[in-house]
Structure formats: structure tokens, C-alpha cells
């Protein structure tokens, strides 16, 4: 063959190949070269099927129906049978396939090569990976230090979460830490202490006549969005009010915006409570047995005036005007409106709330008579849950569990309550100071704290301090960059599971693989079983299930007949609401029903704080307050590379750059125009972003979009601006506590 040089050779070969292929000299410009997939047994080329599964991009658990052609998932549709979404699919779900087929997925287990953060990895087999896990974790048990294992778990329900809880317990570590401190923790605590129920609320928007949204989560990013959407599809829809420092660009259906001072949400709600009590508009019988409502005395003799007195004296609408930014007359009018247009309810954005706000919202809803009635807040602990039964603990485990939790939480029984009180923001300090004891192993499941949690660069240093770090993320991220082992999970499109959406619904939703796993990943639930079995007899015996599917079926509670067959035929299984005796006593109370007696509240002590919410930063140097919000691509940063979610029309400015929202009047005053590069500085960091000037932002506020930044960029993202200030009593993050300064960059 003559030598044409590389290009000539290839060109020549191509021409020859073209002639040989039967006179097809030109490539079809419309041909799509898709990566090959293994041919499924029994499937004809071009055949199409629809696979019922459940979305995993947020906690809502919407039912999906995925169209699969030739072994490839090509379109996401909704499962009309699912009561969660009734066939609709939100913007994230529709972009979901970008995650499944993303080219940056980690292709199999990886072991770190070179120094941490160098991003050099060696491919290993799953057997090797499990062996390495067992060896490292086994050493901790052998040395009698099982408590130095820390697990960061981004899930809060489901069988994988239950298996992790069991694993940590049988291993002997109290350090099962979740993201509750930056999310649902406040509401979980409020519900538990005030109602003695263990569940998170759902909201019946569809039958409500008036809804006060505190914060914008239900409109933008939270799992409540899908129920809010149904309410819009009905013949009548609720009047929507939103109290927050900013409105999203898509809040056109909000009938009235209450421009709230950041941190003023609890005061607003207590002000509403004041009016309800003063004018005797609410149902006070719910507080008949509530400790702390009337004057009370601690055991040591210290007296408290009680919540009623506190609210009546300190939370008059006039007194809280400045703290909330809402005129006193408006607060009174709002309270009267909520009463006059019942059923009405207050819906709190859990990701940006705090303990006070969550408790106050629950209290107002109780007084409005809006708990467990149509159109109200749904608290239903009777939702299906996972119950794997008691595990036998050996001496090492029992001793390890007696150690104080590394995040400084108080620790209590039962274990689920304990998890909800975990304090993730205490971890960087704990790791760096090695107090109360050094962390020796860190597992990251559905967690990317170096990106998603305030504290920025400090997380990098903290994670680097831990000698053995493992991440289960399917994508390399800011936290897994510092790991020693990568054990990538399947995406939810490739997993089998039974999802429990909860939140007032008694539904089980099937998740099943729509395609075979694309790369050499393994479902984390299976990996937990394998590691446990590799850690010796006493651990293995606590995990008697042959595989994850067996564990799911064993753990489904309450047990019912015919669940699996109904799941497999329709994708969902609904509990029969009114018939049959529930398993446990408190299930009856939790059922939305026409009960004559409204739900009583039990404990309202310490609910109201007289002092205004603290902020970080000198108000003179940092005149603005940062108000973070979760954009559609948030979720621990794992959705940042989904291009369709980034390039949405209502995302202002260059969609791939970080942005900060600023009010028109502030922009005018500072000479900033829409799209300008600006420098935002907080006591924690300074970051260059671009400005979005718009209406719907309170003056003095900078709206900070979370989830917009670049992936694995050397430059710290905008979330590094946020302080990790927490409520000292609960460890819950104070989201709107960071002050900032902004100026235009030349």
C-alpha cells in the first residue's frame, strides 16, 4: 500500500471501504451513531417497550413510564397511575436521561493513585473494592474504634437508608449523619415534639382555598412542587401568597408577594399567631394539653411566662414590623384572611427554614384547624416504611455505640429520631480538630458536602484529614475528588427498589431498571450487603438477605398481600385507606379523616425566640444579606451537568455562569446593569459572578442560586460565600444569616 501519510491513508481506506460497501460513497448526514448496547435476549431490533419506574431526582417519588427502543431509554413520560404525579413530569424528570447517558459517569470501581485531589484513578474489580472496604473497616472494629466510622447519607427513607442505619448500628458507630440540618430536620423535630408523630408533612394544595408559602421551595425545587401543580389543574385553585425576600422568575401564579426581611419568617408566623389569639379566631382547644403554652416552671425552679404570654407581648404586629418588613395592618389582615378562607394552610420551605419557623408554621396550621383535613397539612405516620427488625449487636458494636456522636448532637432513641437530629455542619471542625475523637473512615452516599454545604474550602481540608474516604457517587464531584475509593452507584434508571414517597401519601412506587447498567456500577444497597458479609460472622448475620431485592421485600411494613404483583402491573400500590385495622395505635390518628376532634399539640416550650435572627458580618461593611435558593439543577450538585436544565429560557443571563440576583433599585444605586460581572464578598469568601437585575427581589437582598456553578472548578463556587452559622440548640443551618457586599467589576 503506497504511503499517503496518515490523512491520505485514512482517506484512501475510506474510499475503498465505501466502494466495497455497495456504492455508498456518502455518509448519511441524518444517521445517528449511538454507542452499542448488548442485544437483549428475546428482543427484536426496533422494538419498543414502556418501563414503569420511579424518578429519583428529588424526594417526591413521581411515577415514570420510560420509553425504551432497542435497549436505549429515549423518553421519560409520567405514569398516569401514580397518585403522586398523576402522569405529569416536572422539568427535572424530563431532563433525567441526560444523567443516565452522561459521558462523565464513573465507569466502575476506582482506587486512588497518587495524592488526594490529583484526580488519578486505577480501575479495580468489585471483588477487590469490597475486599479493600472490608479490610479498612475491619481494622477499625479490630482496634475497638468502630465509632470512628462516619457515614454521610443523603437519603432519609427507603431500604438503602435503612440498610445503612443497620450497618452502622451493627458495626458500632453512632455517626449516621444526614442532611437534615440543612433541610428537613427542623420540620421533623417540630412535628415530633409538638404532635408526637414521626413523619414529614405533605400538603393538600388541591383542596385548599388559601395557601401562605413561606419561602419559595414549593415553586422552584422542592418535592411539594408536583402537588402544587395538580392544584393548578383543578377547576378552582387556592389563593397563593408567598412570604419571602425574593420571588422566583416563575412565580406568576402567586397572587400576592409579601416582601419579607431575611430571617423574619418565624416572627411573621408568630405575629399571625398573635392576631389569631388576640381576636380569638383560631381553635385554641388544640393547645389544651400543650406544655409550655401557659406559664410553667422548670424542675430547677426557673419559671417561664409560657408561649401565650410571650406571643401576646413580644409578637404584636407593630413590634415585628421592622423584623419582618411587613406592615402591622397587613399581618392582621393576613391572619383574618387565612381564617376566613379555610381550608387554608402555611407551607414552609424546608430547605431554607429553621426550627422556629417550622414550629410556628405547625402551630398556626393547628390553630387554623388545618392539620389532617382536606386542604391542609397532612401528617400521616401510617405511610409505608421499612422495618428490617431488630439486629443482634456484639460487644464491639455496643461499646462503639456508647461513644458520643462525632457531630455533637445529643443522641436519643429511637434511632430514626437520632438521625433527624444529626448536625452535618459540625463535621469540618470535628474532623479537623479530631474531637471528640478522630474520624478514621468516611463514607459518602448521595452526599457531596464540599460543594453543597456552606463552609467551602474547609470541607476539602476536613475530608482530606480522614485517612479512608469512600464515595458512592456515580459522578466525580468536589468531595469524591478527595476519596480513596470510588464505588459508583447505578443511576436510578438502572436500579430495582420500592420507593416510599410518604408526605401524607400511603403509596408505594416501583423502581425498576429501564436499561441494563451501562457501565460497571453496582447498586449501593447491594454493596452494603456485600461489605457486611465480608466483615465477619457477627455483621453478616444481621444481613440475612440474599440480595437487595430480598431485603426490600422483607422490610416493607406494614405487610400486605399482593403488593408486588400490583407494583409490577401498575407501578404503584396504594394502601387501602379506611378499611382494615392499621398495625399500630398511632397510625389511626395519622390518617387524614373526618375526625371530629382536631389534633392536639403536646409541647410548645421554647418555641419563640425573642431575639432577632443573628447574621454573620458587620452590617456596615456587608450591607446586603445573601438569600440562597435551590435552582432546578441543585441536588448535591449532581445535576449541574444536565445541559437542558441549565439552558432553560427563564434562567437569566449566561446559563453556565454563576449569578446573583439584585433588585432594580440597588442595581441603579450601584451602577450595575443586567449581565455585568460583579464581585460578591462575604466574611467567608469572595467570588466573581454575574448580576441579574430584576423585580421581585427585596432591596438589600442578594439572591444566590445554588446549583449553578461549574463542576470541579478550581475557582470556589458561589455557595462558598455562605456561612455555616447554626442554631446552637439544634445544629440547624441558618440559611439567611450571611451578609455580603457587591460591587461592579471594571
Amino acid at each position, binding site marked *: 500500500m503506497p504511503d499517503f501519510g496518515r490523512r491520505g491513508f485514512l482517506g484512501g481506506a475510506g474510499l475503498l471501504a465505501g466502494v466495497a460497501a455497495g456504492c455508498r460513497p*456518502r455518509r448519511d*448526514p*441524518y444517521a*445517528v*451513531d*449511538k*454507542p452499542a*448496547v448488548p442485544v437483549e435476549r428475546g428482543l427484536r431490533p*426496533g422494538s419498543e417497550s414502556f418501563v414503569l419506574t420511579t424518578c429519583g431526582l428529588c424526594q417526591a417519588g413521581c411515577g415514570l413510564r420510560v420509553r425504551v*427502543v*432497542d435497549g*436505549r431509554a*429515549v*423518553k*421519560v*413520560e*409520567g405514569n398516569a397511575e401514580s397518585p403522586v404525579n*398523576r*402522569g*405529569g*413530569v*416536572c*422539568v427535572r*424528570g*424530563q*431532563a433525567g*436521561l*441526560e444523567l*443516565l*447517558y*452522561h*459521558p462523565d459517569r464513573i465507569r466502575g470501581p476506582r482506587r486512588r493513585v497518587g495524592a488526594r485531589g490529583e484526580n488519578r484513578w486505577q480501575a479495580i474489580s468489585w471483588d477487590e473494592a469490597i475486599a479493600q472496604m472490608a479490610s479498612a473497616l475491619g481494622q477499625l472494629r479490630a482496634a475497638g474504634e468502630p465509632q470512628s466510622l462516619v457515614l454521610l447519607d443523603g437519603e432519609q427513607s427507603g431500604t438503602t437508608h435503612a440498610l445503612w442505619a443497620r450497618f452502622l448500628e451493627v458495626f458500632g458507630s453512632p455517626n449516621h449523619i444526614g442532611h437534615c440540618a440543612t433541610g428537613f430536620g427542623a420540620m421533623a423535630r417540630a412535628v415530633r415534639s409538638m404532635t408526637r408523630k414521626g413523619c414529614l408533612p405533605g400538603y393538600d394544595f388541591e383542596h385548599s382555598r388559601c395557601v401562605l408559602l413561606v419561602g419559595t421551595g414549593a*415553586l422552584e425545587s422542592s418535592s411539594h*412542587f*408536583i402537588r402544587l*401543580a*395538580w392544584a*393548578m*389543574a383543578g*377547576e378552582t*385553585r387556592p389563593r397563593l401568597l408567598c412570604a419571602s425576600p425574593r420571588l422566583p*422568575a*416563575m412565580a*406568576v*401564579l402567586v397572587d400576592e408577594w409579601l416582601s419579607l426581611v431575611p430571617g423574619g419568617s418565624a416572627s411573621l408566623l408568630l405575629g399571625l399567631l398573635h392576631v389569631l389569639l388576640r381576636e380569638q379566631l383560631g381553635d385554641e382547644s388544640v393547645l389544651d394539653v400543650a406544655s409550655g403554652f401557659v406559664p410553667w416552671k422548670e424542675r430547677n425552679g426557673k419559671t417561664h411566662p409560657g408561649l401565650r404570654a410571650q406571643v401576646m407581648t413580644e409578637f404584636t404586629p407593630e413590634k415585628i414590623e421592622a423584623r419582618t418588613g411587613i406592615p402591622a395592618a397587613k399581618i392582621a389582615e393576613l391572619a383574618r384572611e387565612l381564617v376566613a378562607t379555610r381550608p387554608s394552610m402555611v407551607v414552609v420551605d424546608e430547605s431554607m427554614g429553621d426550627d422556629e419557623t417550622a414550629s410556628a408554621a405547625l402551630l398556626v396550621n393547628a390553630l387554623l384547624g388545618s392539620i389532617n383535613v382536606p386542604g391542609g397539612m397532612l401528617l400521616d405516620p401510617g405511610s409505608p416504611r421499612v422495618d428490617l427488625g431488630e439486629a443482634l449487636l456484639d460487644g464491639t458494636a455496643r461499646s462503639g455505640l456508647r461513644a458520643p456522636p462525632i457531630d455533637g448532637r445529643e443522641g436519643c432513641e429511637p434511632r430514626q429520631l437520632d438521625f433527624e437530629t444529626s448536625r452535618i455542619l459540625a463535621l469540618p471542625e470535628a474532623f479537623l480538630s479530631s474531637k471528640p475523637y478522630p474520624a478514621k473512615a468516611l463514607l459518602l452516599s448521595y452526599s457531596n458536602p464540599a460543594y453543597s454545604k456552606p463552609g467551602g474550602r474547609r470541607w476539602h481540608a476536613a475530608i482530606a484529614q480522614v485517612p479512608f474516604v469512600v464515595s458512592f457517587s456515580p459522578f466525580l464531584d468536589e468531595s469524591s475528588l478527595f476519596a480513596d475509593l470510588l464505588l459508583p452507584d447505578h443511576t436510578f434508571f438502572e436500579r430495582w427498589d420500592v420507593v416510599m414517597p410518604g408526605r401524607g401519601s400511603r403509596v408505594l412506587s416501583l423502581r425498576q431498571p429501564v436499561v441494563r447498567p451501562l457501565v460497571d456500577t453496582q447498586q449501593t444497597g447491594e454493596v452494603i450487603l456485600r461489605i457486611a458479609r465480608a466483615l465477619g460472622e457477627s455483621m453478616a448475620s444481621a444481613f440475612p438477605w440474599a440480595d437487595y431485592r430480598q431485603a426490600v421485600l422483607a422490610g416493607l411494613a406494614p405487610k400486605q398481600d399482593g403488593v408486588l404483583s400490583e407494583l409490577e402491573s401498575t407501578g404503584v400500590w396504594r394502601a387501602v385507606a379506611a378499611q382494615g385495622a392499621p398495625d399500630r395505635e398511632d397510625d389511626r390518628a395519622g390518617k387524614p379523616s373526618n375526625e371530629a376532634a382536631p389534633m392536639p399539640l403536646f409541647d410548645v416550650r421554647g418555641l419563640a425566640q425573642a431575639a432577632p435572627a443573628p447574621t454573620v458580618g458587620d452590617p456596615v461593611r456587608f450591607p446586603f444579606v445573601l438569600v440562597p435558593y435551590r435552582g*432546578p439543577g441543585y441536588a448535591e450538585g449532581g445535576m449541574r*451537568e*444536565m*445541559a*437542558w*436544565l*441549565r*439552558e*432553560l*429560557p*427563564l434562567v437569566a443571563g*449566561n*446559563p*453556565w455562569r454563576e449569578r446573583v440576583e439584585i433588585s432594580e433599585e440597588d442595581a441603579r444605586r450601584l451602577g450595575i446593569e443586567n449581565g455585568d460581572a460583579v464581585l460578591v464578598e462575604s466574611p467567608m469568601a469572595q467570588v466573581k459572578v454575574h448580576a441579574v437585575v430584576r423585580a421581585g427581589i427585596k432591596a438589600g437582598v442578594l439572591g444566590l442560586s445554588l446549583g449553578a456553578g*461549574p463542576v470541579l472548578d478550581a475557582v470556589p463556587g458561589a455557595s462558598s460565600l455562605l456561612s455555616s452559622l447554626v442554631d446552637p440548640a439544634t445544629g440547624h443551618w441558618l440559611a439567611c444569616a450571611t451578609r455580603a457586599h457587591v460591587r461592579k467589576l471594571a
Partner: protein
Amino acid sequence: MSKKRSKLTTRREVLTLAAASTAGAALSKAAKAAGSSTAPSSVPVGEFHRFGLAIDLDRCLRCQACVVACAAENNVPALGPERAALTQPIHWMDMLIPAAGSAGSELGHDPVPLPCMHCDRPECVKVCPVGATYVADDGVVAQIWDRCIGCRYCMAVCPYGRRYFNWTLPVWPGANPSSANPDVAMRPAGVVEKCTLCQHRIRAVFERARIDDEPVVDEAIQRLPACAATCPARAITFGDLSDPTSALSKLARDPRAVQLLARLGTGPKVFYLRGRR
């Protein structure tokens, strides 16, 4: 056909040009008769449809699920960080965002979903020099990718700005076309594209109905296009305006129904419902 087009660009097939020159005469006549029912139909002779959309702005949350559903169904590429700095993304279903401080549109100052209007008398069809766009007999303003020469005249005259040009070879998000819908062609560079009212779905439903010898009922197609199917608030309704009993026809007759730029007389077939029920 004009001699100017003898200069073939790389993506034109010799075969297609030859075929077009014989069939083109018949088709451009059809294109000129835009909106009339004399052109041959993609449905059997004797059937007649006028498909359109209704968008209820009282239900629409502006969540943009329709935007992404359309992109996923129709293989509309995203740009990625480098190209997003240079050009606007393609959104067959876009959001109309009135400029701050402007008079807004007939629909007010809030963003609204914006598909192709599928006009009865479209400006774009009148100006296309090669007959690459035409009004099909079911009312859909259809697009023939392979005929488009990329002159962008149609983009200039569309009063709604609903047409997009592929400046470069579209790159599938993440450069992995595995999830591309095989029912919709991937457009090459140099071609104008726009919403097709999911005409591939329309074709599939009507074909299925003919094979099974069953009629197509309105209830079965109210959520037919990807945008209507995904909307969590059921704000988008598809249907046949030539059927007075269809849900769409009723919505079009509703006193709340408004069309964008109706005064221009292009006959848009997208009806917005506005004002509280």
C-alpha cells in the same frame, strides 16, 4: 427549480435533488395553496383536521417542563458552556419573556410558553424559496429538513420568532446521542428548525387507528404532543379545531381565549386562556 441551487452543499444528496425537481413542482403548488384543503393529505382522503394548541395561563406554573420535554422528544440539542456564550439555545417550546418596562404582550407581562403558532396563513411558508416549509393538510406547519438551504428568510419574517438556525453541527448533550428519539431526525448544520406539533406522534396515532380500524377520539389526543403530555398542571391541550366538540375547540371559543398578535392576520392556531376562571 432555480439554477442557483445546483451548487450542492456537502449534506445534500444527489438523489434527493433529482426527486425534488420532479415532485417539487407539485409540492410548491401545495405550499402556495397554504391553508387550503385541496392539497393531498397525510391522512386518508376524506379526512380533514386542523390541529392546534390551547395553553391555559391560569394553570401554567412556568415550570418549563414543556420546554425540556419537547427538547427530549425532538432531539433538540443543548449548547454546552462554550457555545452558550456565543448564541442562544434552541427552544422549540420557548418562554416569551416581555422585556422589563415594556408594554408586554396581549398576555401581560409574565412569561408564557411559546410554541410555533402553526398559523393558517404563515409568513414563513410564503417566503421560503425552496418549499422547505409548508402547511400540511392537518394544519401543522411542517418542515422538510433536507430541503432547507439555510437562507433564514423564514426566520426573518416570522412575527413570533419561533424558528431557530443550526449554526453548527448540533452536539447532543454530553455528546452521547443514546437517548435520541429514533422517530425524529437529527438536523444537520445549516438547517432551520422549529416546533412540529410532534407530527411524528400525530402520524403514529393516526396510522395505528387506521391499522386497527378504530376512530381517533379527542380524549386520546388531548395530551398528544410531548409538551401537553408532561405538563403537571395539564395546562396544554392539543386537539382538532375542525371538530367543534373537541376540548380544543371549546377552549378556543372560550371568552378567556386570546391569540398573540392576532391583528397581523396570520391565523395562529395557539390559543392562550387568560384571566381567572
